[in-house]
């Protein structure tokens, strides 16, 4: 693949600017829809993120970025909109449903109005926030805690009709999970409508990214979603490396793969167990939670952190896997693989379990596509989107890569199996990486970096839920002025309601668990 493909995308007469993998060019509001929809519909490029930056201090007003990936070429293209002297931008949501939530988010946090948006309600910030509070504007102090406001209660969609009632669940759930609110409208047991409402774990992370010192920024990225600490940090570091022009040592690339796959293993095993527990299949639950704990303990032994925190760093990784540790890891993983296949053999032959999983929580393919689902949810539809192959990072370009999972119903069973097939694949990837890993340095000696000024970069990593995207922009001084984070959950949350509709209430926990989305990563 060549750079020409990327260049041919840019419409004539536009000045494109390319740094590393990311090509950006400015578009006029009037032609925005044509340009973006050309990329989205004709070129069929996956939309990675829409976000905004506040560059009024530098006299450039607000900018809105529409970031697309070019799979296979490992390049990204981002038309952007400059809003000078206006807080209105044309909404693409009616034509491109994926833009729906992004635009609401921009509207909420930047106070920019998406003109023509069908449902322009605030996202994440609840009615107890003042209406004119836009935290991601530069003139909003990160320590300012706004007064408590009494806004209108959130207008959940009401299903009319006699006998329909609502079940409110959350934010404090009965299980040990993150907080979020689900509003079911039910006809007896059947869910006729489900509306999740999130934002309960909003901690101002994106604002903090702008304010904290660099080491803390990296620590913060590990805490965006605790279960994906390493992947988030890796995505952030990759973006920073692109801005700093740092290259990563070869050995570190392999180590990154190993750690990322260990994280995937732990979470997939945990999820498989949790799905089985929610279906009431206690054997599978206990066995998988045991296997997951084994991975967590391996993590602890290798890196002193069960969540692989403090492992990823700009330019490399901080934790080495010595040869004897590698040997032990190999034997442990082989044992776990064997153990796991034994568990799945039993689970796969349990008629009662399969009956619970198959056809439960189906998402229609069209809805999944139009909402841009990623990761496990997409693989359950047979949509082969995987950043490890589409935008190879670390050492993935040199490693065995399995084919995508090819079920297409998009039900709980498919999401279950998407995980179950990735578990042995991950182990294979780690084993290959361990044997192919070249000797050498793993981390650059000095921690001083200088970032390109007034530039932007993208980091993308296939976390265990789906691809994690970090968009980082620097200001005139080369300081990081904006970090936009897109966890895969942000997209996948939008289809959860459709997955549950038509199913019965007692099956919802199972459906929810089969997605196992991050609240924290969505709320930021």
């Amino acid at each position, binding site marked *: 693949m060549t750079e020409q493909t990327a260049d041919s995308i840019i419409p004539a007469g536009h000045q494109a600017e390319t740094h590393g993998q990311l090509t950006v060019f400015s578009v006029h509001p009037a032609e925005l829809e044509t340009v973006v929809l050309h990329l989205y519909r004709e070129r069929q490029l996956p939309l990675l993120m829409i976000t905004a930056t506040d560059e009024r201090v530098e006299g450039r007003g607000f900018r809105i970025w529409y970031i697309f990936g070019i799979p296979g070429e490992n390049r990204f293209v981002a038309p952007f909109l400059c809003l000078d002297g206006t807080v209105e931008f044309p909404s693409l949501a009616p034509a491109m449903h994926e833009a729906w939530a992004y635009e609401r988010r921009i509207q909420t946090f930047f106070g920019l109005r998406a003109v023509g948006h069908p449902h322009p309600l605030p996202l994440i910030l609840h009615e107890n926030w003042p209406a004119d509070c836009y935290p991601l504007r530069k003139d909003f102090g990160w320590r300012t805690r706004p007064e408590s406001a009494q806004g209108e209660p959130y207008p959940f969609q009401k299903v009319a009709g006699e006998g329909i*009632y609502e*079940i409110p669940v959350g934010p404090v759930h009965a299980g040990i999970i993150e907080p979020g609110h689900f509003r079911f409208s039910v006809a007896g047991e059947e869910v006729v409508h489900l509306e999740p409402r999130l934002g309960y774990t909003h901690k101002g992370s994106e604002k903090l990214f702008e304010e904290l010192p660099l080491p803390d920024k990296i620590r913060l990225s590990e805490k965006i979603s605790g279960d994906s600490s390493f992947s988030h940090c890796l995505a952030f570091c990759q973006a920073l490396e692109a801005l700093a022009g740092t290259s990563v040592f070869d050995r570190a690339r392999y180590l990154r793969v190993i750690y990322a796959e260990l994280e995937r293993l732990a979470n997939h095993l945990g999820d498989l167990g949790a799905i089985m527990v929610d279906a*009431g*299949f*206690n*054997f599978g639950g206990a*066995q998988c939670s045991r296997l997951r704990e084994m991975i967590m303990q391996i993590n602890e032994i290798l890196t002193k952190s069960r969540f692989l925190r403090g492992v990823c760093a700009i330019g490399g990784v901080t934790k080495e896997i010595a040869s004897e540790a590698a040997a032990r890891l190999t034997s442990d993983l082989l044992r776990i693989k064997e153990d796991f296949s034994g568990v799945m053999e039993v689970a796969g032959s349990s008629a*009662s379990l399969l009956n*619970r999983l198959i056809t439960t929580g189906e998402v229609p393919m069209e809805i999944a596509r139009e909402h841009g689902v990623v990761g496990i949810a997409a693989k359950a539809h047979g949509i082969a989107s995987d950043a490890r192959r589409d935008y190879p990072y670390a050492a993935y370009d040199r490693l065995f890569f399995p084919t995508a999972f090819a079920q297409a119903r998009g039900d709980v069973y498919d999401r279950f199996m998407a995980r179950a097939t990735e578990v042995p694949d991950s182990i294979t990837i780690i084993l290959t990486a361990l044997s192919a890993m070249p000797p050498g340095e793993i981390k650059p000696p000095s921690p001083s970096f200088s970032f390109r000024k007034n530039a932007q970069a993208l980091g993308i990593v296939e976390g265990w839920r789906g691809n994690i995207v970090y968009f980082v922009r620097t200001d005139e001084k080369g300081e990081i002025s904006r970090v936009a984070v897109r966890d895969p959950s942000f997209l996948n949350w939008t289809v959860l309601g459709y997955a549950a509709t038509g199913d019965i209430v007692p*099956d919802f926990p199972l459906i929810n668990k089969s997605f196992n989305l991050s609240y924290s990563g969505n709320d930021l």
Partner: protein
Amino acid sequence: MHTFFDILQILLIPLASPLITGVIKKLKAKFQNRRGASVFQPYRDLWKLFHKDEVISQDASWIFRLAPCIVFAVTLAVGAIIPLIDLATFAAPAGDLLTVIYISAIGTFFLALAGLDTGSAFGGFGSSREMTVSALAEGGLLFSFLVLALVAGSANLFSIADSILTTGNFYLQPIVLAGIGFFIVLLAENGRFPFDNPATHLELTMIHEAMLLEYSGRRLALMEWAAANKLFVFMTLGANLFFPWGLMHTFSPGALAAAVVIFLLKIAALCLAIAFIESTIAKFRFFRLPDILFVSFTLNIVAIGLIK
């Protein structure tokens, strides 16, 4: 002597029932390669709950406040009129199969009302599910007893146990079929797998626990205890009516010892069966549950066909 046994019987059910749930939990933990809590854990839980304060919903009426007493009293009353160790008690005048079924229905009735009383959505659908399951379980329950009554020529539980003890072998097939039918109902009525998951934390899937979500402190303790009693009562019914071997006919120390030992063995076997089911299969989808209950009913119909 009988008075002594009568009093013993009234006390034995509530005193021993937490142990039953403790044993089942222990066995389930073993199936999951865990050590699990002590078999006496339910006693500690109850003891603690009885010493805690209560928070009661403002919307709750006296139904909610009185229901635990009623539900518990009902399990006591049923426990007093079923054959436990010996075959002669003061309770025989009330020990008719219909009486036992309908007295326990009082407990279900008030439990379901209590679930509705606070106006929480969880309590509401908990009640709805409970009533759905128990309404459909009634056919199987009644008919499994009816099979025995037809074999025994009497609907009195004590006469049934007595007569199955002596003539049961002629009718082994129908009794076993009815026994399976009864076991299904036992699982349904007591919120065990595959009907309900007593260990779940997911409020949306709950049946029995959803109705108790609003209870706290001593009323919660009473409700949990009553549930344990009910399980024990059903297990006793299953053990002593369908397999009445070992019941004491006339009092003698030897017979008493044998009766107690055999009874405990039967209960242990039932505990193991429940733990085994809960460890090896998944909970069923809600709308598959009626099918199992109709299976229970049909098994009993077949059993009646075999008798006639």
